[in-house]
């Protein structure tokens, strides 16, 4: 079971180099993504039965999937599948216009598979060292994807991404070394198990609190760079806006969650050692509020619609951090729910920008008028997506944001709750003011013809829209049970 998660992207990623047929290349990748999705659902079923899926034989000490990793795994696989489907439409158009060559397409598919492989590895391993290696590998695999178009801006964005993330993550290695140190000086067990998060979680009370505290700071800064917390966020708007839209969707919808997962694991170890969430909570709430404030200010002045969405990712990671920081059952549940909602909504918006970009060939807001008129489906999905991402009902994000605020009020974190609401209002106003112009009016450019490019792209958008609306109104029972199990894991030791 577990080896399937590693084998499928590996095979799909290398197989694309064998053939020259465009259709076969697209289908290979899509089939791989579909298989991953099926396996992730199967593993969720197994987790429900046996609580966790463990590796066999040689991998016994290495792999372990519990509800939390299974949950994020599912989100990753779902987003990757939808993005793969969308990629067919996006890159067919790019090929048709000769923006990219066939080899570039193959490069895209093998790199995106490598990217997903690295993220899956980070999720299924229980060894913090391997997790670190995998998260660093995500940077390496996606650096070329960010610089995909090879122009000045793309290369600058890729260089920033590579340097800032590699350096930032080096700090979390120091944190992991400290964690390992604190678990080796207290335990007599084998060398390997000392790095496992579930070993550390079970023996959390015998670890040294002062080492754990400093290790948490290092890991928060390190993985936080990858999550996009302000003030380490500077790579994020550049990378997300310069990458091709399917890659932006993966970066924003999936990668940020994977890095957040690293923080969550450390968080539960430290919390269960200290017995309360005050220490980690204050740090997370502070970083979260800072990120939301930064995003609110920068959204007001953007002129590029992809950059606005990128800043909004920073904002939503901040909201998740606040949910985790408050650390009551309701707020942690809201944070997990938000992870899903944000992944789906933001993927939808970034994919929609892909359609818009292919049509208008500009990322400037001022270059786009009459979107709803020109592209009815994309335009409509985009405007609904803007309302969803800013937290309007009936979409999922409204529910999770509402619960986060409710959790904050319930645990008497009034200042955080008020600030959060104020920033959310500013972000809402900024979003509507900036993007509102794009949708109405008439298109003055005669070269842009009416109509969608093809049917696959809008179809993916409709699927995503359906998901976010239905999850805003009703959470299916198995899904709710899964999130409850994840909440228990995070709050477990306290």
């Amino acid at each position, binding site marked *: 079971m577990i080896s399937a998660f590693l084998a499928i992207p590996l095979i799909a990623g290398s197989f694309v180099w064998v053939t020259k047929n465009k259709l076969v290349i697209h289908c290979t990748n899509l089939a791989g993504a579909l298989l991953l999705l099926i396996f992730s659902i199967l593993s969720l079923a197994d987790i429900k039965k046996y609580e966790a899926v463990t590796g066999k034989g040689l991998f016994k000490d290495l792999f372990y999937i519990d509800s939390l990793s299974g949950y994020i795994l599912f989100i990753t696989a779902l987003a990757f599948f939808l993005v793969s489907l969308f990629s067919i439409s996006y890159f067919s158009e790019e090929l048709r216009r000769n923006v990219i060559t066939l080899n570039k397409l193959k490069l895209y598919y093998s790199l995106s598979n490598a990217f997903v492989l690295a993220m899956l590895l980070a999720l299924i391993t229980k060894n913090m060292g391997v997790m670190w290696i995998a998260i*660093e590998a995500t940077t390496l695999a996606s650096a070329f994807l960010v610089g995909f178009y090879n122009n000045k801006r793309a290369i600058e964005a890729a260089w920033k991404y590579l340097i800032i993330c*590699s*350096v930032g993550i*080096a700090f979390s290695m*120091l944190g992991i*070394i400290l964690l390992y140190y604190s678990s080796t000086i207290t335990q007599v067990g084998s060398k390997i198990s000392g790095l496992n998060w579930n070993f550390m979680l079970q023996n959390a009370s015998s670890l040294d609190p002062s080492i754990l505290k400093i290790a948490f700071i290092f890991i928060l800064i390190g993985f936080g760079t990858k999550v996009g917390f302000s003030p380490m966020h500077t790579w994020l708007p550049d990378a997300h806006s310069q990458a091709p839209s399917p890659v932006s969707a993966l970066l924003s919808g999936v990668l940020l969650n994977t890095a957040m997962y690293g923080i969550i694991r450390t968080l539960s170890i430290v919390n269960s050692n200290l017995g309360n969430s005050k220490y980690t909570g204050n740090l997370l709430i502070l970083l979260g509020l800072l990120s939301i404030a930064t995003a609110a200010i920068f959204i007001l*002045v953007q002129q590029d619609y992809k950059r606005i969405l990128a800043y909004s990712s920073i904002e939503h990671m901040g909201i998740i951090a606040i949910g985790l920081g408050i650390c009551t059952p309701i707020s942690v549940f809201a944070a997990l729910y938000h992870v899903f909602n944000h992944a789906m909504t933001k993927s939808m918006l970034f994919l929609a920008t892909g359609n818009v970009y292919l049509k208008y060939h500009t990322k400037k807001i001022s270059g786009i008028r009459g979107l709803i008129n020109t592209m009815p489906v994309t335009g409509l999905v985009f405007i609904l997506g803007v309302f969803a991402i800013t937290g309007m009902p009936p979409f999922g994000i409204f529910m999770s944001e509402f619960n986060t605020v409710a959790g904050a009020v319930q645990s008497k974190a009034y200042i955080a709750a008020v600030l959060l609401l104020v920033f959310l209002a500013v972000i809402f106003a900024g979003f509507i003011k900036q993007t509102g112009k794009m949708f109405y009016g008439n298109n003055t450019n005669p070269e842009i013809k009416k109509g969608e490019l093809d049917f696959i792209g809008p179809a993916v958008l409709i699927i995503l829209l359906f998901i976010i609306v239905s999850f805003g109104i009703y959470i299916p029972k198995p899904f709710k049970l899964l999130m409850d199990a994840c909440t228990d894991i995070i709050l477990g030791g306290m």
Partner: protein
Amino acid sequence: MYSNAINLLAILILISSFILIANKRQNAYISTFRFQSLLLALVSLLVSVRSMLSNKKFDEVIIIFCLIVLFKVVIIPIVLKRTSKKVEYTVEKDFFINIPVSMLICCGLVVLCWHVIYSIEGINNSDTRNYLIYSMSVVMLGLFFMISRKKAIGQIVGFLVIENGMFLAAMLTTEGMPMFVELGLFFDLLTAVLIMGIFVFKINDTFDSIDINKLKNLKG
């Protein structure tokens, strides 16, 4: 005897990072990096030989020793020097902050690391405490080197120095992480340097220079 030797080497690694900060030319700091990696290799050799002598069985850290010598002492410096020759342009001043001031800042960073490590009550072994101070200072100095240089190659060297600091910390505080983690770490970072090298060429092609000060298109 053993701990004295390790201590000496660790201090020398820290001093070599100070030398790095004081270097003005690209070739000079690549050589300093090579010297530092050699010291790191010696540390790993000492750690593995000692554990082999006391446990009477094969210790895997010796593989790390071979890898460090092969890649960090031989291959990476040669490749970096070749790269820097290919993309050579006259940048009159390679640094943003002049050298005496950067030296003072670096001393401040070391004091900061010392203060942070001493505030952790859980580390009661004084040797470990010192090793952590040295290795964390090397990481900090590498970071400072990165932000104070204008050329892309300088940033790669800074990254490599940060890496050296991480390896030093892993090796000395915990006597080596599990083998597959160390190997994964090593190859991860090697790939990172390789990709950065490719990007140096790309930057050179598109911007006609490797002065990262020119990367100013994306703001706000």
